């Protein structure tokens, strides 16, 4: 029996495992690195052991230290989570050698599947179809995909479209694989475009019983990193489902698998699938299976590790679950990771954290089956026991059928997202009887979430979940290739209104914090010369907000993005008529601009904005966008505090929630979430970097330098490579010139904004161009 369990991991998966432990009465032990000292997973554990350092190699990849930690903290079992040491058979052996229970498959099975090259051979001999493996040195047909043999999570993976890219991609993939997995071996396979990524969760007990559960579809990816996963797959019918599950079960049996694992397949065309790899661990996306089957996979892992047998057949699948991975990264900026303090993190109306939908019973509850043949059949083909009632035939209980939202989060308000580790903040999982309902619930949950701090991929996730292609089940792994990632997210109007809200929230905060003349009305003037001006940088450009303080509050004098005036009213500060109801009338606002706005042109913002993929979908129209607020009407500030602003547009009032930190502001409203950066009124001159300065885009370490001072560089030529958040980031020359300064050496640790190098314009070049 396990009495205390150490999770050799961090973030949401550590919390996920702890949650099951707590419910099972098992003590919890966390390990943590320097940057994670204040992390939620540490705070939640009964005991915690410090792993000095920050780099994964000396912390979460340091098996020796982790085993020592387990022994020191009195743990008798180790759960590896996913990533880090989860698929390291050497670590599993260390754990077992220390007399601890290993919550995972036997090291031999791990070893057999650890190297993808080896796994493919075993799969092939077990009758599972595999793609041909290509010799990296002799590839002639493109495109191909380079994969790290020891890899996962997209790391060490490179798509190569031509022979000229091959050598560089191989080197880079090897380096990344070496850094991430300690093994630089890579291989190539043909790159299937338009394929779907489908995987089968397997569970096997020590007696050799194997469950293969309903498949997961992980086709929505970017850079080979899964973004949205769901179960069941909209592209898999009963027949294919049966074949996939049988293939997965036979492979698990062939390697004597025990515990939880996942067999990944690529579906190239109808009914045609290829084995990709066998992940000998719990997957990030395991919650969708949990929600569909009503089964706690971590609990099953613990039971198997303690020698308990699996019941004869798994609980039936019912309904549809979708998971979205929320990353601290900026899709509009090449998915650049965003290490930042989390100032707010809240998803309204979440039904459970790490938990299962009501109406599902946690394992090992009496198994129920649905009437669907595919899920009544276990991998071994046994029929479900007779007489059991499917949940789907019990429509009377609302709780079973109302959509359900689950949050698996590694961060909370106050968590620092470190550049040292994976940028995933949280997973949001919805379950509903139908796929459409699940997608709608998840999109709404993401859209209404308050996430302030790091830039996230939230808007992209919402766009995908509201994308018609996704909604009809047509998404393959190339879905995001067609996305204009810069058009995702708030439009100009949303940015403007959010900037207005931020401006007046700041005004309110300024008055609250004022020490001198603090009780005099804000912005009061006996001689009014000009409005207050506050400017912000937004995703849609610079926004100038001009406003007047009046005895009744604040009136808008101007509001524009990039030179486009979109309304506003300017009223003398002392005119008691400024709050006349006429100004709130949509008809008047639309048809008869008052003299005050005679010079303000109607906004072309709406007409101009190109429909993003998201906007093409009628399903995604938010309340704000469906309202008359879309009209070119003047916003009126009704009430404002430092954290909340009410703005009326054409007679409709909207609430804007504002959170600020330093010069950043995050504004959430019915118009979406907008991140704003307040423009310094009086910037210090040194803040303006010289042209040609290369600044670190994020904290990280310099892993390679490709140019020396004095080198002549072409525009776009690589200068150095920065590693941050497990990804390589290339820093290239912004223009043709000479490398005038190099401020870093290999191994330098840099902070965001640090000057790395300066490329001076080559004067001879300039002259040549002029001639």
């Amino acid at each position, binding site marked *: 029996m396990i009495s205390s369990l150490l999770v050799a991991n961090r973030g949401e998966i550590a919390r996920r495992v702890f949650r099951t432990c707590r419910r099972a009465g098992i003590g919890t032990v966390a390990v943590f690195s320097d940057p994670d000292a204040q992390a939620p997973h540490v705070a939640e554990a009964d005991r915690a052991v410090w792993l000095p350092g920050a780099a994964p190699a000396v912390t979460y990849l340091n098996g020796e230290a982790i085993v020592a930690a387990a022994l020191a903290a009195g743990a008798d079992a180790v759960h590896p989570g996913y990533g880090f040491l989860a698929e390291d058979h050497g670590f599993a052996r260390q754990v077992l050698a220390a007399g601890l229970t290993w919550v995972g498959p036997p090291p031999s099975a791990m070893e057999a599947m650890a190297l993808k090259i080896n796994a493919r051979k075993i799969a092939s001999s077990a009758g599972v179809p595999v793609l041909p493996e290509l010799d990296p040195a002799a590839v002639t047909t493109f495109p191909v995909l380079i994969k790290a043999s020891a890899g996962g999570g997209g790391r060490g993976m490179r798509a190569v479209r031509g022979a000229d890219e091959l050598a560089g991609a191989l080197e880079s993939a090897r380096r990344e694989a070496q850094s991430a997995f300690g093994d630089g071996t890579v291989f190539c396979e043909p790159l299937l475009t338009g394929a779907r990524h489908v995987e089968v969760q397997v569970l096997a007990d020590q007696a050799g019983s194997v469950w293969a559960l309903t498949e997961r579809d992980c086709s929505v990816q970017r850079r080979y990193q899964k973004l949205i996963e769901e179960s069941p797959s909209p592209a898999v019918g009963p027949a294919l489902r049966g074949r996939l599950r049988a293939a997965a079960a036979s492979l698990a049996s062939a390697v004597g698998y025990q515990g939880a694992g996942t067999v990944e397949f690529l579906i190239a065309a109808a009914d045609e699938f290829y084995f990709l790899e066998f992940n000998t661990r719990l997957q990030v996306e395991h919650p969708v299976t949990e929600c569909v089957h009503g089964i706690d996979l971590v609990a099953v892992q613990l039971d198997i590790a303690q020698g308990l047998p699996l019941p004869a057949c798994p609980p039936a699948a019912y309904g549809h679950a979708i998971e979205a991975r929320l990353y601290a990264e900026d899709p509009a900026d090449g998915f650049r990771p965003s290490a930042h303090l989390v100032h707010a993190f809240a998803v309204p109306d979440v039904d459970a954290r790490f938990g299962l939908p009501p109406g599902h019973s946690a394992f090992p509850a009496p198994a129920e089956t649905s009437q669907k043949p595919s899920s009544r059949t276990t991998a071994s083909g046994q029929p479900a026991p007779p007489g059991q009632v499917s949940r789907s035939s019990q429509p009377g209980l609302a709780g079973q059928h109302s959509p359900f939202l689950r949050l698996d989060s590694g961060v909370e308000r106050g968590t620092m997202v470190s550049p040292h580790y994976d940028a995933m903040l949280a997973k949001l999982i919805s379950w509903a009887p139908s796929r459409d309902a699940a997608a709608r619930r998840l999109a709404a949950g993401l859209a209404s979430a308050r996430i302030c701090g790091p830039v996230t991929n939230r808007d992209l996730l919402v766009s995908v979940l509201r994308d018609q292609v996704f909604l009809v089940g047509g998404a393959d792994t190339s879905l995001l290739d067609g996305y204009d990632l810069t058009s995702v997210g708030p439009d100009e109007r949303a940015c403007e209104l959010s900037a207005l809200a931020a401006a007046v929230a700041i005004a309110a905060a300024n008055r609250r914090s004022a*020490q001198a003349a603090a009780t005099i009305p804000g912005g009061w003037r*006996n001689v009014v010369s000009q409005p207050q001006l506050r400017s912000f940088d937004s995703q849609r450009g610079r926004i100038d907000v001009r406003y007047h303080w009046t005895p009744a509050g604040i009136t808008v004098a101007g509001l524009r993005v990039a030179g486009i005036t979109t309304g506003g009213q300017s009223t003398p500060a002392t005119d008691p008529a400024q709050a006349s109801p006429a100004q709130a009338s949509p008809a008047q606002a639309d048809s008869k601009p008052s003299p005050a706005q005679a010079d303000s042109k109607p906004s072309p913002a709406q007409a101009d904005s190109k429909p993003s993929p998201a906007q093409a979908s009628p399903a995604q129209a938010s309340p704000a966008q469906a309202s008359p607020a879309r009209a070119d009407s003047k916003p009126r500030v009704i009430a404002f505090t430092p954290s909340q602003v009410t703005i009326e547009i054409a007679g409709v009032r909207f609430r804007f929630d504002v959170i600020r930190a330093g010069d950043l502001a995050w504004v959430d409203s019915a118009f979406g979430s907008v991140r704003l950066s307040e423009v310094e009124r009086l910037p210090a001159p040194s803040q303006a970097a010289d042209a040609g300065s290369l600044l670190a885009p994020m904290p990280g370490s310099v892993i390679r330098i490709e140019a020396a001072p004095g080198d002549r560089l072409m525009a776009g030529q690589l200068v150095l490579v920065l590693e941050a958040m497990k990804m390589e980031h290339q820093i290239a020359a912004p223009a043709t010139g000479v490398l005038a300064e190099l401020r870093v050496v290999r191994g330098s640790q840099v902070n965001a904004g640090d000057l790395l190098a300066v490329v001076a314009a080559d004067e001879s070049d300039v002259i040549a161009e002029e001639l």
Partner: protein
Amino acid sequence: MAGQPFRLPGSSGFRRPTRDHNRGRRDQGGRARPTGRVTAADGGSGGEHIVPHVTVLASSLDTGGQQYASRRAAMLAKLDELAAEHAKALAGGGPKYVERHRARGKLTVRERVELLIDPDSPFLELSPLAGYGTGFPVGGSGVNGIGVIRDTICMISASDPTVRGGSTNPWSLRKSIRSMQIAMENRLPLINLVESGGADLPTQKEIFIPGGQIFRDLTAMSAAGIPTIALVFGNSTAGGAYVPGMSDYVVMIDGRSKVFLAGPPLVKMATGEESDDESLGGASMHARQSGLADFLAEDEHDALRIGRSIVARLNWRNLGAGRALRSALSTGAGLSASGGTGLAPGSAPAGPLYDADELLGIVPEDLKVPFDPREVIARIVDGSDFDEFKPLYGASLVTGWAALHGYPIGILANARGVLFSSESQKAAQFIQLANQIGVPLLFLQNTTGYMVGASYEQAGIIKHGAMMINAVSNSRVPHLTVVLGASYGAGNYGMCGRAYDPRFLFSWPSAKSAVMGPAQLAGVLSIVGRQAAAARGEPYDEAADAAMRAMVEEQIEAESQAFFLSGRLYDDGVIDPRDTRSVLGMCLSAIDSAPGGWAGGPGGSGGPAQGSGSRTALPGASRYGIFRM
């Protein structure tokens, strides 16, 4: 206040509208008015019925009536005139020169000021009408005002280079000197935004000799421990060069600031030396060689940023006594009815119970008609709470205690224009009381002067008027004066007119100040002329007399106007009545920077606080001239 004796309803000609449960109010049939709140009444003794000592004013202003409407219309017309004059000051040197200025990449003077002060903070501009009626541009070619920089109340004085190159004329000189007087008296750090071509040479005779005071005052302020900061945006030549020269901190802008005693042409004339602007007085030279510049700014924004950071490092603290620790009223109602003030509940003193907008309908079109100053007080003091002193005695002058933006004040307000012996003695006593407890005084002027006539002379009106003037003159607490209506004769002196150096003096737009009313003055001249003609035995030319009277009346009328007097710096500005509370609040905030305000609390301990670094309030006056008895 509980336990104070009940006072009888006023027997004066003016009502105490709140008294006696509002019964007997002369409601003129207007809409229902809010009735005053009642302060602590039961004195802690359970069943004993004590008639409350009500200090919250009730208003009987009939805002639905014709009289209110016509007074309001007249005041709004005056405010339009005021806005038109302010617009002249705001326009600076006009579009052509403003455009040229901008084309040089420069900020206008008001943009500079707005960027210098804290965002969303209030700003009280002083003497915006300087120069009105003098032939020189309205505004005195600059902006003076009290503003908040890095949470420090400061005096800002900025020249407007679009107005004749920012050159100093006699009125801008007076405006500058006045700004320095305010900074000195109230202990406000002074920030000069310098860009001036020097003296207006045609009027140099009015400027050169008195202008020396600027430099003397600058160094005297420094000696008094009041920091002076010069941000030099452009030319600061000849005499102007001593502004940075005399300032404690000097910021110059690279490539922009030019500070020299003589420019290249004059140097060539004087010594034959060939030179250029940059070597004679460039910012870089002054920062690196002469040491006249302490900071070299990259551009105007940088200079303003440096200026703000200098203020932040002044380690400035107010030496006044601050707000009342105890209030007669429980506060927490927030600021009046405004829904979104951005202020935390409870952090602000209670605003007046009545709408400031109604201040527009109080002052009669004809200043000969008296009005009840309590209607004004009810709309400017915290919670409309006014604890009247000696209400039954000398009823033509209202005296009492109140708080404004939390600062305790004593108020003297003319109620029926004329000051009699009893009003004079009441004023003298009240001023002494304010000095005893160190509370600033607010004078609300609407006076035709001291009563004349045989019986009054025989009763000693001069003696009693002298008592009042004696008390005002020797009072040591800060004085604030607002001319609401008339300010005639020695009433102007007794009620702390300009010559009595109130810390601040403002006028409402229709106010008038003169030795006497225009008609009276013309009439006096007529009588004197008639007597002279009779003495010579000549016939009196009635036609010429009428013409003379009309002309004199017109001239005196024009020269009594608030705008005209404001143009000559006889006040600190003509204000919108609705702004009165904010204007006075800014003044009290400024006054609190210096020692000398309130010394304890209502009935408090008094006397200066002990210990270094703590707020040190000076006691009020303990010595006066001999009161003639």
